[in-house]
Each structure stands twice: as C-alpha cells, then as structure tokens.
C-alpha cells in the first residue's frame, strides 16, 4: 500500500471516483487532489520550500485536459531542474483522450510510467500494484 497519492483532475466526480476506488482497494493511505496543473505545481513548490520530502506523493494520477494549466504544461514544468528534487515521483496519465499522438507524446517524459484510459477501476489498481511491485 502506498502512503500518499496525488490525483490531478478538474472534474470533481472523477476525483470523487478516484478517492472511493483507491480507498476501497486499499491502494493508498492518503489521497490528496489538485484541480489543475498549477495547483499541483504549487503543492510541490510548498514541499520544496518546507523541505518536507516526507510529504512527497509516491504516485500522481494526472489528467491531460484541464483549465488554467493542462497536463502537458504541468509535465513540462515538472520536468525542469526546478523540480529535480521531487520529480522522481511516478506519474500515471489518466485521460479520456483517444488521440494516439497524446500517447506517443507522454512517452517523452521519464516520470510517466503509464497511460491509462478513464475510468479508474480496481483492476487498474491491481495492475499498477504489480507494475510498481508493491
């Protein structure tokens, strides 16, 4: 079981589903959420500022299509030196996109370990558990 997971999505229902499915499957102790890429980055900024690496999430579920700052912009920022202390965090893209180009594009980011299609399910979590060797 993971300690901390960050779910980034602008849709409250998706976030609600994530929380419920994750806690039901006992996939993680704590689930925190962010409404878009900017909020997610702010969270990491605060960790860096406080030096509180304990509060670092082990996994991020990242949506792509979000207002203010979308998933790509978040990845671009997260992949810079500024976040070198924290960007070892693994990311799973969780999206409704069917554009094959998105899939290809996501492979360019080293922290992205998978690209999954919504909705989040318990089967998906089982698969991730084995992938992360938990």
């Amino acid at each position, binding site marked *: 079981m993971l300690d901390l997971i960050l779910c980034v999505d602008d849709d409250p*229902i998706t976030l609600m589903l994530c929380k419920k499915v994750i806690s039901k499957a006992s996939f993680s102790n704590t689930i925190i959420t962010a409404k878009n890429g900017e909020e997610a980055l702010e969270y990491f900024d605060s960790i860096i500022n406080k030096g509180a690496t304990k509060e670092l999430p082990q996994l991020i579920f990242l949506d792509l299509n979000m207002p203010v700052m979308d998933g790509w912009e978040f990845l671009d920022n997260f992949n810079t030196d500024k976040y070198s202390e924290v960007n070892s965090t693994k990311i799973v893209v969780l999206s409704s996109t069917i554009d*094959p180009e998105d899939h290809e594009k996501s492979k360019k980011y080293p922290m992205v370990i998978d690209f999954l*299609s*919504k909705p989040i399910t318990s089967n998906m979590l089982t698969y991730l558990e084995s992938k992360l060797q938990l």
Partner: protein
Amino acid sequence: MKNKTTQITTIYILIASILAVFLYKITSLYFKQEDQLIFNLFKDFILILLTGFAFRYILSKNERRNKTIFERLENTNNEIKESNQKYDIVSKATSDTIWDWKIQEDKMIWSKGIKAVFGYEEDQVGDSSSWWFGNIHPEDSIKMSIKLYSFIEQKTEKWQDEYRFKCADNTYKYVLDRGFLLKDENGKAVRMIGALQDVTKQKEEELRLKLLETVILQTKESIVITEATFNKKLLPKIIYTNPAFTQMTGYQANEIINNSLDILKGPNTELNVIKKIIQIIQNKEEGLLEIRCYKKDKTEFWLRFTMIPIYNSENELSHWVSIQRDVTEEKNQEKEKEQLIKELTQNNKDLKQFSYITSHNLRAPMSNLTGLLNLIEDIEIDDPELNEIINGFSKSTHLLNETIEDLTKVMIIKDNTSIEKEDISLKEVFENVFSQLSNQIEIIKPYLKLDIENVSVLNSNKAYMESILLNLLTNSLKYRSTDRTLKITIIANQNGNTVELIFKDNGIGIDLKRNKDKIFGLYQRFHDYPDSKGLGLYLVKSQVEAMKGTINIESQVNKGTTFTLTFKSK
C-alpha cells in the same frame, strides 16, 4: 585487192606467154641447133631473174601496206581498251549502272553495276528491253514508258525519269535514269545509252523529311526555330514557326520571322525565367520552362516550352528548336486544385481535431458514469423498483459506452492508415475471443467447428484481428435462429501467399438483394434487435481494409451467413 591480184597474175601470164612465143620464134629463126640450148638456158635465167624482181617488188609493197594496217588496228584496239577501262572506271565512280540499247535490233547490254547495285548475276540479266521494262515497278511503268517513247520519237529533248527498279531479291530500289540518243544519218534513233543511279537512300530520306514536315505542320504543338546567335539584350531571332504557333499566338509566320522571341513578352512575364532562358542559351543545354506570355491581341497565357540546341555537322551550335504549348487551362486547374487541397487538408485537420475533442468530451462523462455504476454494483439495494431502475440505467450506460468505444475505434482506424503487424497465432486469437464471450457461449451452447490448423501463424495486427473475430462471432450469437441449434464453422486456408478465413453460421441471415450495397455501411441495421448499433460490420470492414485485406459476404435469409476474409500472409 583480190581483183588486183588476178589482174597482176593475168598480165604476168600474158606477158610471159607472149615473151615465150616470141623468144621461141627468134631461137628457131636465128640460132643454130647447137646454140639453141645455151640460148634457152640464158633466156630462162633472164626470165627467172625478171620474175624474181617483180615478185620482190610486189611482196615488199604488200608487206609495207599490211604493216601500216596492222599498226592502225592495234592503235584502234588500244583506244577501245582504254575507252572501256574509262567507262568501267566512270561507272564504278558514279556507282551508276550503264545500259546500251540498240533500238532496231532490240539488243540491250548492262554494265557491271547491274550486279553490284541490283544483285543480278550475268545469266539473270536479259538482253532485250523487255527485261528492263519487266523489272520496273507496275505503278511506275506506264508513266515511264510514255516519257521514254516520246523521247525516242524525239518529241522531247531530254530524258530522265525516276522509277522503282526491281532487284534480284525482289525488293525495289528507287532509281534516277538518264539517257541520250544516237541517230543514224537520216536522223533516226538507232541506239540509246543511259545511266541508272540508285537514289533509294535519297528518296527514303526525302520521304522521311516529308513525313517530318507533315508532323511539324500538323501537330498541335507550336514549334519555333531560332538562330543560334544571340546578344544579351534580345532573345534569338525566329527563323521558322509552324501553323500551330500561329494558332496559339495569333502571329502569322511572315510577321514574326526575323523578330526576336521577345515579341511574346509582356508586363507579367517572369524575369527570373527570362534569366533562366539566357543561362540555358549560354550553357547550350536543354531546358523545360514555363512563362507567362502575350498573344498578338495582348491576351496573357501560360507557355510551357522546351529548348533544344541543334548542332550542325561541324558540331557547332546552329539553331535552337523550341516546342511550345499553351498551358493556361492546366495552370488554372492546378491552382484550383492546390487551393482545394489546401482547404480540404485544413477541413480534414479541423474535423479530426473536432472528432478527437468530441470523443474526449463524450468519453470523460461516460467514464464517470461507468465508474459510478461500478461503485453502485457493490452496494446492496433493497428497493426492488430502484434496483430495476438502476439495472436499466446500467444497461443503457454500457450500450452507450460500447457505441462510443466502437466509434472511437473506427476513428482511430480511419486516421491511422499504417498499422503495426506482427506474427500472431490464430489459435491464441480465437481462444481470447472465445473467453471474452464465454458467458454467452455457455448459455447458447452453439456447435463450434474450428478448422484452422492449416494456418498457424498470421502476420497481422492482433488487436484488429481480435476485434474482427469478436464482432463476427458476436453477430453469429446475436442473430441466431431460434428454430435450430446454432452451428458456427470457422476455416482457415493458406492459398499461396494469401490467407483465407471463412466464417460460416446457420443463423437468420441477411437479405442481400435488398441490402447488398449497404451491408458494410455505417449505421446500417438489418434486424430489429434492441442492442444492435449498426456499427459492427462497418468496424470489421474498416479493420480488414486497414490490414490491406478484403471481406466478402454470402447470405440467405433463414439459412445462414458466410463471411470470407482474405489477407496477404506477408
């Protein structure tokens, strides 16, 4: 001469006889018997001496005369020999064949050229004029005879004619025949001597040139020939234009010849193309260019033209030939086409973007619905009415989800024309498909016959192949007949480098007469079934075609349906 000889001999006999009688008389009158013998001896001696001198005189005179005659003959002979030699040399040098025709006797002889040029052996050559006439091409012979006889009858002064003369190998050669007449003292033609010149090559060349000229005159392409010389201010001078050029530009040949090609220039003529033309001329190379030009009436048009340098026998540039065509319409169409392609590309791009966004926006709430339903499944509901409502809600959501997923698949297939292929095991694919449908198979219990051992490995896209077979099998299960046990036969065959998959059932079938054209169309439903979306066969066909395969259907209402799929195995 003969008479003279007889004369001399007669005179000699007479004189000798008279002398003999006279001397006999003298002897018997004046000499004594004993002196007569000596006198006779003396007399005979004198006679022999006189005869001897006379003979000597005559013979020496004859000898002199003979010698003169012999010398004269020898000279004539030499002259004839020399003349013959000259004649041979001349006929060899001109490669003409000389003939000599004695008209009254109708005797004709031919020089050696008849063998060298026409291939006749000596024994094949006739000795009368009929052999000559017989070898003239039938189409030429009448015209030739008329001209020849009017010359022999001296109605015309000169004779020369062109006709085709047959060779020993039965082919014809074009000849130019020229002759002159020899007349007797009365002015009558007695002999004719002629020279036959082989002009086949010239004639063929002439015909070829005539043909080429026809091409130049008749062609729809404009042809312009210019001088080679050129100064930097003006393009080369025109020396020839064909009728097509007049047709294209409105300029008559006589008003444009001796003008520079600059006459076609106008306000929109591309200067960079003119520079290119000058460069081509300087480099003496070939070129193909397009430029805006102006007709005589100042109408603008697009000219596509080639430039070809022409060299003379000394390998010096002598002319430029330019083949030209008005391509205005082509250019306009090209422009329109480019514009259309641009618009279509943009439209396509927009539509693609739109469909991805639409798909995303549909899928996002859909996934939420599915997720929420998954959560509800774990909650126990006591109210039977609510349970029924949720059940209906769940079914509709799943159907909607499937539809969206199928549409998404179609969209991806249509967008990605090239797909990845790998060697897949047909058996494995079928096992996967059967396991996905295990619930239905368990309930319906169809009789399944699988004969796929002939093709163990297929180079294909696994996801597509599974989707195709899943769709076909689902259709068979869905559209089964309630009157009989469902029977599904699947056969795989390898035919050379193609693989054939036959998928046959005994279901309710499709009325192909009514639906032939739309069987694989989008949103086509052939049976009134609640969960039929009209997408399955469209998706199957799209996937088969994406893998460069083909699909055919045979079906009879209430008997069954057979699908035949073919794929290239490599």
